[in-house]
């Protein structure tokens, strides 16, 4: 390699490594060192490295139950998500009908809908005295509730499917729309019937996307926390719930650390497998032409009305729980018996400290919003710095190190920070919700990186070069060309970060202490005390704040664009 070329490349690489310094230092203090402490506690017995604790934990009946239950429920949830989600993806791709755009947008809701609100909705809707049972008893004139779903494997599986079927639908829809319609046309011209071309051309084309979606759903369900905690309890607990119970309820630190090491191994393995498999999905080519659609409601094809057989039950499963939460927040009778009432909202917004929450309800709300704002800001800064350094340095090692929190389950992260804040340097931080802010920055920033990086890569490098030849320095070119072009992505990433932090409950549960409570925790606490009115009001507040944040960011992005036009 010629000297000067090498020199220039080195200069660029050095700039990239220099950019990576700040994120690396941050991760070392807030992530790697706390995680190391967890491993040390789980694997170090009296100063000696040993697998004794690990083996003891793995031999434990309860832990074995946790592991097998976790995998069983994840597998079933994934399959049910596929069964519920694939038809929706199909519907969204092949048919045109009024409200299709809204329905498509709704498939994104689960990405930002806090799982604890789903759990609450399930209790209210499918519960023993829930709306569905009430309706069925009234309709069929039964004296006993016909559906006994709660506090079982199936409640968890159905809630996971509710949550993840739209993910499957979205992957299927995106991949299907990207498929070149000429492929099936070619198959038809070559003599394949409708069914044969569907089976031999369309389905194989969707395979990578479906596998990708299933892998993602499996990871999400394995590491799910709020839903099994609220719908399963100690008996139907997953490993994530197990770590939480050991740490915060039984306060058995060595066993917690050993189980956390196991969970860490599982989450790293699953993330690795998912990321390796996920590459498949991105190799799909996109077509110039859109997939043709046909109207859903059509006199000549009455058979298409069979879709109602899917749409109506699916609509009940999807809309029922959310509607139940909003309805109950107004309709649950207040202590005096009044209904409808705003009593529950007055309670949710009260500043009186509640013994149940260890904080005032309004205090939980302000903490949540403050933490989410700080976490979104921190995640954006960290995400931009990491994207910039990964742009300059193409190193798998650096990428793996900088993105490592992606592969660590939230409960392990929460445990790590719980332990880390007892020791310097993090114990030097002034009092405040810092543990939670750090946890949420670490949980959320990989999503920021993943939404900015592709956008940045797709920018034509000659844009910056053009700016340079027109007299702009490298820094001016970044400010006047790259940054404005990245802005929509940054806004979306910021909204996503805010919403994810707002609804996050796993790390929050690990790190909660008197005076540090968040909205999802308050919902969970009200729910487990069976104070459904208060829980519903809190959950509605959470959904409203999330929706307002997302819409506001989106509006800001559009206003920014309009101002430039």
């Amino acid at each position, binding site marked *: *390699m*010629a*000297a000067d070329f090498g020199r220039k490349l080195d200069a660029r690489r050095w700039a990239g490594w220099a950019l990576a310094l700040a994120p690396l230092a941050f991760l070392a203090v807030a992530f790697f060192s706390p995680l190391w402490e967890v491993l040390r506690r789980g694997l170090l017995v009296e100063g000696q490295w040993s697998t004794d604790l690990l083996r003891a934990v793995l031999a434990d009946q309860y832990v074995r139950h946790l592991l097998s239950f976790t995998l069983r429920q994840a597998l079933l949830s994934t399959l049910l998500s596929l069964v519920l989600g694939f038809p929706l993806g199909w519907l969204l791709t092949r048919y045109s009908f009024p409200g299709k755009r809204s329905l498509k947008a709704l498939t994104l809701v689960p990405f930002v809908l806090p799982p604890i609100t789903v759990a609450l909705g399930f209790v209210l809707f499918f519960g023993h005295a829930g709306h569905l049972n009430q309706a069925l008893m009234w309709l069929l004139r039964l004296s006993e509730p016909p559906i006994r779903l709660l506090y079982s494997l199936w409640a968890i599986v159905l809630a996971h499917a509710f949550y993840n079927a739209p993910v499957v639908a979205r992957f299927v829809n995106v991949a299907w729309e990207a498929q070149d319609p000429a492929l099936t046309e070619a198959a038809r011209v070559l003599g394949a019937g409708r069914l044969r071309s569907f089976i031999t051309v369309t389905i194989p084309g969707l395979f990578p996307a479906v596998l990708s979606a299933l892998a993602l759903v499996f990871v999400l369900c394995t590491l799910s926390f709020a839903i099994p905690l609220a719908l399963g309890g100690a008996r139907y607990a997953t490993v994530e719930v197990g770590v939480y119970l050991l740490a915060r309820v039984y306060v058995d630190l060595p066993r917690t650390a050993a189980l956390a090491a196991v969970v860490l191994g599982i989450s790293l393995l699953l993330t690795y497998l998912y990321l390796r498999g996920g590459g498949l999905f991105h190799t799909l080519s996109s077509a110039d032409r859109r997939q043709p659609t046909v109207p859903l409601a059509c006199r000549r094809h009455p058979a298409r009305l069979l879709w109602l057989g899917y749409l109506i039950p699916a609509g009940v499963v999807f809309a029922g729980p959310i509607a139940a939460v909003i309805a109950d927040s107004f309709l649950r009778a207040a202590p005096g018996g009044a209904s409808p009432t705003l009593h529950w909202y007055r309670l949710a917004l009260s500043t009186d400290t509640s013994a149940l929450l260890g904080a005032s309800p309004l205090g939980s709300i302000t903490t949540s919003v403050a933490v989410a704002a700080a976490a979104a800001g921190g995640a954006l800064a960290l995400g931009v710095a990491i994207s910039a350094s990964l742009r300059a340095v193409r190193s798998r090692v650096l990428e793996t190190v900088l993105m490592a929190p992606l592969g660590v389950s939230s409960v392990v992260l929460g445990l790590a920070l719980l332990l880390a804040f007892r020791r310097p340097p993090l114990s030097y931080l002034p009092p405040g919700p810092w543990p939670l802010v750090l946890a949420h920055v670490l949980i959320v920033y990989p999503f920021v990186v993943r939404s900015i990086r592709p956008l940045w890569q797709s920018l*034509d490098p*000659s844009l910056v070069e053009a700016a340079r*030849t*027109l007299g*702009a320095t490298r820094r001016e070119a970044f400010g006047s060309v790259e940054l*404005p072009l990245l802005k929509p992505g940054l806004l979306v990433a910021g909204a996503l970060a805010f919403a994810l932090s707002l609804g996050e409950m796993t790390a929050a549960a690990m790190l909660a202490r008197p005076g540090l409570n968040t909205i999802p925790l308050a919902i969970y606490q009200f729910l487990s005390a069976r104070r459904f009115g208060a829980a519903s009001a809190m959950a509605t507040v959470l959904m409203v704040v999330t929706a307002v944040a997302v819409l506001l960011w989106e509006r800001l992005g559009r206003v920014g664009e309009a101002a430039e036009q």
Partner: protein
Amino acid sequence: MSFLVLSGIDKRFGSVVAVDNLTLEVAQGEVVALIGPSGCGKTTTLRIISGLERADAGRVFLRGKDVTSLPPEARAVGLVFQSYALFPHLTVEKNVAYGLRRMPRRERSHRAKELLQLVGLEEHGGRRPHQLSQGQKQRVALARALAPQPNVLLLDEPLAALDAALRTSLRSELKHMLHQLGVTALYVTHDQAEALALADRLAVMRAGVLEQEGPPERVYMRPESPFVARFLGRANIWPARVTEVRDGQAQVDAGGETFTAPAGQMRTGDKAYLFSRPEDVQPGSGIPFQVERAEYQGDRWEVQARRGELEVLVYVARDTLLGAEVQLSFPPSSFQLLPRESDR
């Protein structure tokens, strides 16, 4: 004094030599076309002049000033990118005004409008790049590069992304504009027709080396190597041997036939290539050739014919009745002898 001087430029990418000891001068107001097949180093040369790449060796002078180690923003060169690289988040007018940021606000807008008028897009200042056609984008890119009155305008295949008809019309428009404004320009293209039509001077590059330079007519009519002969237009090139030189005329043996050609520097016994352009070969009488392929092109027939080892391309008038045989004569002035050793 030359306006732009490249002296002894070397550039490698890994083990690939992109530019090899390139020396080139461009005078003020001159339009020079840098032409060659893709990968010959012409775009790299442009990027070195603009400062987007650093040369491994050699120096770049602009208006007598050594700019070799200056960053691109300090060189005041205009560069029109092949992809145009218009800023998608800015309006057309703001794109054009981008390089005028040191100017007072009012002057800047005035200048941008002036340039848009020059390229005939004064109505489109408020649009975004994605609302423009390819040809309009090309004009905006040109206006943007010209707005700061650069020392030299560099154009990197500026017409390559356009369809054939638009390319031809924009070509003459561009030529007119460059000469009217008296812009000093270096124009990179692999399209020989474009280079011949636009440039005051051609510089033909091959594998990083400047093969030949000069006015378009001379380079076309008097190529110095088979490569240049083949790259600019169609050529008949036969391996030959000089059998006799007398009065500046050489008797040449090629494929068993004897031809007469201007001797140039050739001496008896030299190996050479005998070169002619198809349009200089005269059909009608002379040596009979077998017709191998004939293609009707509307205004004429393009005929490929053979006699033994000699393969020839020739144009025949469209009303000629073609048989299996065509008789061709080769006036001595249609021939040129090219050195055979130099053919790499």
